[in-house]
């Protein structure tokens, strides 16, 4: 007896295509590198073209990766840039088999705002991805129709547990009292809520949506932890070198994203939260369907991007 395993694109004969946001460094780079081994086209959606090109050169030098690498300009802190990205992708008119929402910022010390007036962490981590996925969703849905196996992977974090009181509906952007980690927690909670809501709406459309915790990974995400102008003290360096020993490498951090974007059997992961390539129960706050629905509608209002998906 033989075993049948159908991989994305296998039944259509077209090249398989995946998009990774924030793919120029850290987990995103490793995710893109791993996916470039299986997907035929990998689009790196990044803010900074030079850094993205450098990343593409790194991936291209890996002789196991023979995917076609593409750059797409995408600044998640600007709705205009997201719209440009969306229009460009729609114009190219290629189905997207996997979308990895990986980009993120963490623990900005002071409240900053994106160009559209959103608080940066929630604005980039959640609203940016909401809008970007919204723009390209017809392409994802098409892949789902063709192969029954399109995937949306939302990189969240265990930090969503910081938001233990749930989503702050009245103060999503932390305007009354800003806390660097509070807002990060909110943004990551929003990631899971969004993934779950999208998963519910994608039921039966051949699109699988999952969120995940990559682990504590040694990447640039910690870039705001140290005030840029402050001098790095010698003991800070020592301490950091010590902590590093307990952090995952970016390759390890990318494992769960890659697992969800490629290896897990289709449909299994829909609406679930993963950590270390295993399903994990997220905080209770993530399972609140009212919050999810509210966030969905609020995100649509704020970004002006709407999915053509009815809640089933």
């Amino acid at each position: 007896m033989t075993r049948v395993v159908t991989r994305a694109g296998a039944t259509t004969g077209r090249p398989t295509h995946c998009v990774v946001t924030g793919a120029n460094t850290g987990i995103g780079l490793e995710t893109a590198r791993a996916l470039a081994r299986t997907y035929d086209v990998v689009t790196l959606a990044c803010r900074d073209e030079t850094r993205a090109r450098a990343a593409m050169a790194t991936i291209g030098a890996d002789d196991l990766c023979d995917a076609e690498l593409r750059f797409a300009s995408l600044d998640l802190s600007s709705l205009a840039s997201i719209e440009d990205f969306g229009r460009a992708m729609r114009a190219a008119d290629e189905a997207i088999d996997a979308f990895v929402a990986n980009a993120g910022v963490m623990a900005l010390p002071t409240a900053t705002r994106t160009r559209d007036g959103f608080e940066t962490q929630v604005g980039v981590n959640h609203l940016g991805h909401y809008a970007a996925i919204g723009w390209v969703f017809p392409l994802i849905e098409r892949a789902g129709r063709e192969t029954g196996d399109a995937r949306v992977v939302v990189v969240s974090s265990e930090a969503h547990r910081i938001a233990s009181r749930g989503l702050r509906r009245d103060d999503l952007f932390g305007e009354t009292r800003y806390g660097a980690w509070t807002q990060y927690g909110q943004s990551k909670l929003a990631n899971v809520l969004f993934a779950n809501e999208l998963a519910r709406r994608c039921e039966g459309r051949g699109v699988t949506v999952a969120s995940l915790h990559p682990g504590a990974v040694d990447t640039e995400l910690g870039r705001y932890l140290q005030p840029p102008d402050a001098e790095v003290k010698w003991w800070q360096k020592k301490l950091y070198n010590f902590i590093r020993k307990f952090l995952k490498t970016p390759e390890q951090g990318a494992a769960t994203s890659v697992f969800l974007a490629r290896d897990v059997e289709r449909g299994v992961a829909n609406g679930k939260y993963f950590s270390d390539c295993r399903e994990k129960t997220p905080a209770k706050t993530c399972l609140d369907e009212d919050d999810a629905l509210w966030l969905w509608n609020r995100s649509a209002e704020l970004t002006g991007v709407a999915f053509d998906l009815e809640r089933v």
Partner: protein
Amino acid sequence: MLAASRDDTVDVDAVSSAVRSIAIEDDEARESRDADGGENDDGDDDDDEQTNADAGAKKKKKKKKKKKSGAGGGVKSTSVQYPGGKQTAPPSVPARELYPSGTYPVGEILPHHEHNLWRETDAEKREIERIEENSYNEARQCAEVHRQVRRYISEWVKPGMKYIDVCETLEDSVRKLIEERGLEAGVAFPTGCSKNHVAAHWTPNGGSESVIDKDDVIKFDFGVQVKGRIIDCAFTKTFNDMYDPLLKAVNEATETGIKSAGIDVRLCDIGEAIQEVMESHTVEIHGKEYQVKCCSNLNGHSIDPYRIHAGKSVPIVRGGVQTKMEEGEYYAIETFGSTGRGYVIEDGECSHYMKNYDVGHVPLRLPTAKRLLGVIDRNFGTLAFCKRYLDRIGQERYGMALKNLCDNGIIQPYPPLCDIKGSYVAQYEHTILLKPSSGVEVLTRGDDY
């Protein structure tokens, strides 16, 4: 020669080489028949020393030879001398009686890849292997049964026979040779005899009137199990030498897969190697040229006790997962070459079913479904079965109950897998074992493929 190997049961290699030399001898005889026009029949009973020596060199030649003679050959080669006597035609003497020592021939051993050569001398690994020797022997018994049955079937089957008769003869032979006893030993899964554009999972249901045509490309895929140790092995049978290049391509691809397999080898690398070999072939069928394509969604698989499709899949195209093969695993390495589009879809009347391995207790409302599930649990457990097997054990009017079990996710149907109509798909498959110390054992290796 055979007496010697019987006495020396500790040295398993001696047995294996002895048995392999039977094959070689037989081939030798065939070769000389070809060369001398039948003058020199059975002439070289005594020079197995020499044939052993250049067994390796003969391998390649042998394979090609077989295919040519296989197409038109009679059934005379079934009269091979085994340590305990001869096999009948059709096969009916249990393998246990043919090997009175209880030690079955070892398959072909491929040495480890370079980075694993340390295993050959490592005391711990050698010890692990010695401890496992008994279970290896059970697998070898299954493999021997497979070899003997397929030897008969591939020479006996002719156009004009009914598929159902061929399958039943084949299954009866397997049952006799392995001495079927419930779940402990018997047929491991339904006999696949998918033809032409159907790649796999087709076997006639009861009352089928399908007849073998002279232009059919038939994939005989059948399995034998002892104590859950499943041997899964397949070959392609044709009656028209027009298909020989296609068969050659697929056989080469399978051999490539086997050669690339090994402990710590990444599954994706095997798929890539297979695809490269398979797609380097072009074939001409009915005057039209085709590039052979791998059926990209068909996979080899690891085999666990009573579980034909265990955790890992061995792809036959590039782009697989990077999971590695591990020590002690059994794998079915199978490749499919097609003249069609190179991927299969489920189509046609379903015959194969199997209980889901992971399913726990599911409450059932329908009493007939409950009863049928009991029957399946007792007779097949988690082994695959087909409707004919249910008929055989006296089940009647089980259609509704079976559907109910499928709807509840307890039983998984495995419908036929088809490429596009008018295409031809060929398959070769071996079961291999990644031994901790001595290398990769191709359990089902025979003189035919």
